[in-house]
């Protein structure tokens, strides 16, 4: 099977990889939207969506009612509704940019996935080989660079809608995203300073960070969330702001801006913004997991290679790869759950508070954190 894959022409390989990304991200985003509804319901003491079921599925004895209770069919019917309902194009909008905006929202959401490793197996020599679509040396930089393009969708959507609330949403979005990008980038620098010790080959690859967290010994196996809690905290808060999640959902704050930048959007174009938000959330959670939660290592101080030895999986790369993907996805899903938990707990910040937190609290904290860790790392690694 592996031979068959590597015998395919490179262009076809790339096309298949791209389709695989879409085939994974769209269901995850959809499942997140359903999970959001179910989890919000659970937090509020209600059952949530549990009605829709196709008539032929109701006859399946146990599984049918169970899936109905979980609301799985609501997801499908919502998707179909989004696809088939009328797609309104208001008369006062700037049409080319109005249509361009949701497409622009999808591009960074999908592109960032390609540089995120999502699992690993061990080759014959015992080296961990990360599973990822494009193993580029600049990993985290690519995520940040392409992720920062997401702001265009919001600005363009707000501007092209040619009405007040979307415009205010777009203005808020651009200011907020640019403000928090600084703290986010500064917060991960200590991690890479620590990983790229003198004498080793320099790399910004995310897989390298995970490798560093799966070394034997007490300090080798420690996840970075324990070594650098302040970095992890600043990164997480900036991530919430960058993905426009509560309590930072200024761009679409429905109480004061109706719907924010997507007020004028409906049907499929609106759902594209939604999918983009959830895939940003997924990729952000994945990056957080890789940087601070040990990637595909099941527990702190228990690297994947130990598990492979215990389960005698070292010589079956496919099974081990699947196991590592499962562990990694589990952590990502947990992180997405925390996103939702925070969302249904906290009220939204006021806009001036968002700016104050970003520039007067997080940024100085990130800079101080960087200086302290740079000094400490210089002393330790000398």
């Amino acid at each position, binding site marked *: 099977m592996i031979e068959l894959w590597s015998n395919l022409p490179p262009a076809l390989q790339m096309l298949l990889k791209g389709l695989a990304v879409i085939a994974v991200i769209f269901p995850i985003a959809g499942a997140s939207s359903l999970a959001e509804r179910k989890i919000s319901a659970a937090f509020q003491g209600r059952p949530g969506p549990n009605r829709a079921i196709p008539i032929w599925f109701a006859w399946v004895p146990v599984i049918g009612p169970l899936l109905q209770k979980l609301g799985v069919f609501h997801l499908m019917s919502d998707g179909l509704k989004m696809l088939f309902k009328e797609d309104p194009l208001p008369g006062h909008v700037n049409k080319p940019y109005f249509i361009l905006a949701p497409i622009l929202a999808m591009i960074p959401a999908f592109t960032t996935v390609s540089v995120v490793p999502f699992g690993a197996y061990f080759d014959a020599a015992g080296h961990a080989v990360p599973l990822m679509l494009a193993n580029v*040396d600049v990993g985290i930089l690519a995520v940040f660079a392409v992720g*920062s*393009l997401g702001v*265009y969708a919001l600005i363009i959507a707000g*501007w092209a809608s040619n009405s007040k609330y979307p415009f205010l949403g777009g203005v808020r979005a*651009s200011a907020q995203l640019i403000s928090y990008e600084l703290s986010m980038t500064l917060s991960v620098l200590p991690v890479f300073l620590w990983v790229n010790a003198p004498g080793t*080959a*320099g*790399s910004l690859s995310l897989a390298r960070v995970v490798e560093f967290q799966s070394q034997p010994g007490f300090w080798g196996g420690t996840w970075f969330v324990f070594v650098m809690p302040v970095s992890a905290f600043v990164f997480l808060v900036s991530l919430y702001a960058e993905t426009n999640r509560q309590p930072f959902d200024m761009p679409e704050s429905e109480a004061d801006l109706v719907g924010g930048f997507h007020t004028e959007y409906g049907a499929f174009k609106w759902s594209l913004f939604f999918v983009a938000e959830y895939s940003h959330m997924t990729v952000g959670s994945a990056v957080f997991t890789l940087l601070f939660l040990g990637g595909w290592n099941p527990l702190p101080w228990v690297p994947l290679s130990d598990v492979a030895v215990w389960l005698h999986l070292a010589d079956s790369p496919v099974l081990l790869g699947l196991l590592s993907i499962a562990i990694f996805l589990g952590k990502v899903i947990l992180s997405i759950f925390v996103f939702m938990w925070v969302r249904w707990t906290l009220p939204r910040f006021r806009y001036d508070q968002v700016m104050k937190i970003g520039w007067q609290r997080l940024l100085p904290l990130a800079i101080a954190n960087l200086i302290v860790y740079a000094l400490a790392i210089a002393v330790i690694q000398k």
Partner: protein
Amino acid sequence: MTDLLFLVLSAVTLVSAVLVVVNRNAVNAAMFFLLSLVGTAGLFVLLDAYLLAFVLILVYAGAVVSLFLFIIMLLDTRPEAQKPFKKMTVAASLLGGLLLFTGVLSLVLRFTPAPVGADPALAPVGASLKAYAEQLFTTYLLPVQVVGFLLLVAMLGVIVLSKRFQEPESRSQNSGGTA
């Protein structure tokens, strides 16, 4: 494959760069600037200079152009409300163009293509982060510091320009009124 990509990316970069200049709508111009930057980043990727490509995207596309758009949206410029150029502007841009042309001309005339694989130390500079950083902090340390200082001066200038300096007595009056 690479040649075709090079041609396509160069064409996209150049055409959108021209469109930035001639476009009367400021938002269109900013978007074409973005497209031109993405094309340039693609060219860097073709040269295996991933770092440069992503830094270009991160700094210019991610921050600078989005700030441009932000300002354009806030100012709400009308495409027809364009003033004719001042004489000084024309002269300055002509001089700038001339300088740029001279620079490119001298580069073309003096350029001798290096034989492939002649300098193995030079090849990975664009690709490897470490080599890039080393060059930046050893060979090109002075230019980096000078550019950094220029940016600092510009930032200070902006702060001075945007901050309203008040006389001490008027300030105390203001604070008394608002407190």
